[in-house]
């Protein structure tokens, strides 16, 4: 027995304390801060869920996807269609919202499965290029399937409700004198989903599938010699990441209370990539941190445009807030990739030639 296991919790106590403190703060936040901050949190949590899926796909399995935005769109529009009522030029099934949310996630998984003839055969950057097509396909469908998507104007999104409680401004609830509107109640909903998504993702990465994925990333031949079915594994991890993207889509739709096609562009896919690369590939906590950073930066810039140099509000002469934010996280990505060899190595692994028949050395002496 190694001596480290004698006090298995010893090293974890500070981490557990920090986690508990963070959780307490997160739970208390709606009682203290305004809807602006809560909404920013909602967007960040929605993005975090999608980023966890992508970090499993890219970080652990080494499979690049530029089609993440497509599956986010499937989740968002899937929910809007399944839960929405017909009328105003769009149709909907009017399912109970919770059921619609679950089905929307499954639908994204099914779409990921339909892509498995491609996702199971290609690796690394080649899959990235192939999945790029999905974004354009998605955009075309969103513009043209008007009855489902509402065309370029998009469609409104029914708030989630569970057992008669609606996560919207209609719910007439007051907690400690604070009225609980959409932002406050959804905050807790999103928190539960995000924590759940993080725990599930962490389990996958720490367990048998995660180990197989990481060896597969370093050497497909090595992994298959251990009995890992490469094609099946690639297809499965792609489906998993699609479902995470679908869940992110449902949350995004709920947070915006509306879906519009322009949001689900290549830009969104790239934003997700930035999140997971910044966060450190293959790390659930990193994906969450990356998502918070990428989502909140432009919002903070526009809120504090007046007090920031070079940044101006709408119609001003300097950089607008979102452009300024892009400069900043562009720079941070470059720095992160340079100082964090893990990220660079994973990217380099993603550009290796496909289906090499020569055993690849992962750790040559």
């Amino acid at each position, binding site marked *: 027995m190694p001596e480290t296991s004698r006090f298995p919790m010893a090293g974890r106590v500070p981490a557990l304390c920090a986690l508990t403190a963070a959780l307490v703060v997160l739970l208390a936040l709606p009682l203290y801060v305004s809807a602006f901050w809560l909404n920013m949190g909602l967007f960040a949590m929605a993005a975090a869920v999608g980023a966890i899926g992508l970090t499993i796909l890219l970080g652990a399995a080494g499979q690049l996807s530029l089609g993440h935005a497509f599956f986010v769109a499937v989740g968002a529009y899937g929910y809007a269609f399944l839960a929405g009522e017909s009328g105003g030029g769009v149709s909907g099934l009017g399912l109970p919202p919770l059921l619609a949310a679950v089905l929307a996630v499954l639908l994204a998984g099914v779409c990921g499965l339909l892509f498995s003839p491609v996702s199971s055969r290609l690796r690394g950057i080649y899959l990235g290029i192939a999945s790029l097509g999905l974004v354009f396909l998605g955009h075309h469908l969103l513009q043209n399937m008007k009855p489902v998507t509402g065309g370029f104007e998009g469609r409104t999104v029914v708030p989630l409700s569970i057992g008669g409680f609606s996560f919207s401004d209609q719910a007439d609830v007051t907690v400690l004198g604070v009225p609980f509107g959409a932002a406050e109640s959804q905050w807790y909903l999103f928190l539960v989903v995000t924590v759940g998504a993080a725990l599930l993702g962490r389990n996958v990465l720490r367990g048998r599938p995660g*180990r*197989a994925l990481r060896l597969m990333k370093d050497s497909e031949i090595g992994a298959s010699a*251990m009995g890992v079915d490469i094609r099946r594994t690639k297809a499965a991890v792609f489906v998993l990441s699609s479902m995470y993207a679908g869940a992110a889509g449902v949350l995004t739709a709920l947070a915006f209370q509306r879906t519009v096609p322009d949001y689900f562009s290549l830009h969104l896919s790239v934003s997700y990539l930035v999140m997971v690369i910044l966060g450190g590939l293959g790390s659930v906590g990193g994906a969450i941190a990356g998502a918070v950073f990428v989502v909140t930066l432009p919002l903070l810039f526009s809120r504090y445009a007046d007090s920031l140099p070079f940044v101006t509000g709408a119609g001003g002469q300097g950089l607008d807030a979102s452009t300024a934010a892009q400069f900043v996280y562009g720079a941070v990505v470059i720095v992160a990739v340079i100082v964090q060899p893990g990220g660079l190595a994973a990217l380099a692994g993603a550009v290796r030639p496909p289906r090499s028949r020569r*055993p690849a050395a992962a750790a040559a002496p």
Partner: protein
Amino acid sequence: MTTTPTQTAAELRVEDVSVVFSGLRALDGVSFTVRPGTIHAVIGPNGAGKTTLLNALSGIYRVASGRIMVDGQEVTGLRPDRVARRGVARTFQNIVVSPVESTLDNLMVGRHRLTRSGIAATALGLGRGEQRVHEARVRDIAEFAGLSGVLDRPAASLAYGDLKRLEFARALCLEPRLLILDEPVAGMNTAESAELARLVSAARDALGLTVVFVEHDMGVVMSIADRITVLDFGKVVTDGTPEHVRQHPEVISAYLGAPMESGNDQVAERLS
């Protein structure tokens, strides 16, 4: 490690196997049989086709013709993961491990075919019981291979000899019936080589394994091999006991110019 064999060693029959790379016949009608529970060496000069043979055995290279039989069942043309599921495990000439993973996690990958929990079950935390059971066995194997002290260290931080033993131990973690090793002691010093050679025959005795290994170190080959197949230019030069191979005129003239002696470093040099 348990000293009772957990399964029966496999018989390997290689029947007239050829492998062709865009015109180059890397293997040309290779045949030999490995009896269950024996240690079988494959030797030959660089480029003779030894690694190609092992890759054909484990399903990594497609054979152009011929058959590969494990315990009378044909494995020719099966994918590597299917071959692994038949109880065939291997190591690589150029070490293949996950560098950032701990030694323990690298070894646990070897349990993949023996464990079940897929993505959904693992996500829901259902794989933990299975993992505990298998981790105990993996720790035993690590102890046997002398890796207990480095279980928590990332593989990238291991000394070269430890990495070679890690690959060997990971192959054992598959609980194979046929163990394939590509140059298991290459790059090790004499003491490390002797220790690994001892581990290979101890594993064979304890676990009920058949072993096929490629090696340039003639000291190791002569000390543990029950039989030897000599390859050159993709063809079998000769096949027999170490005594037979040592005396074989073609082997002598091709590599040695003089009869082989076990542990002769000069021989090892000429062969590598």
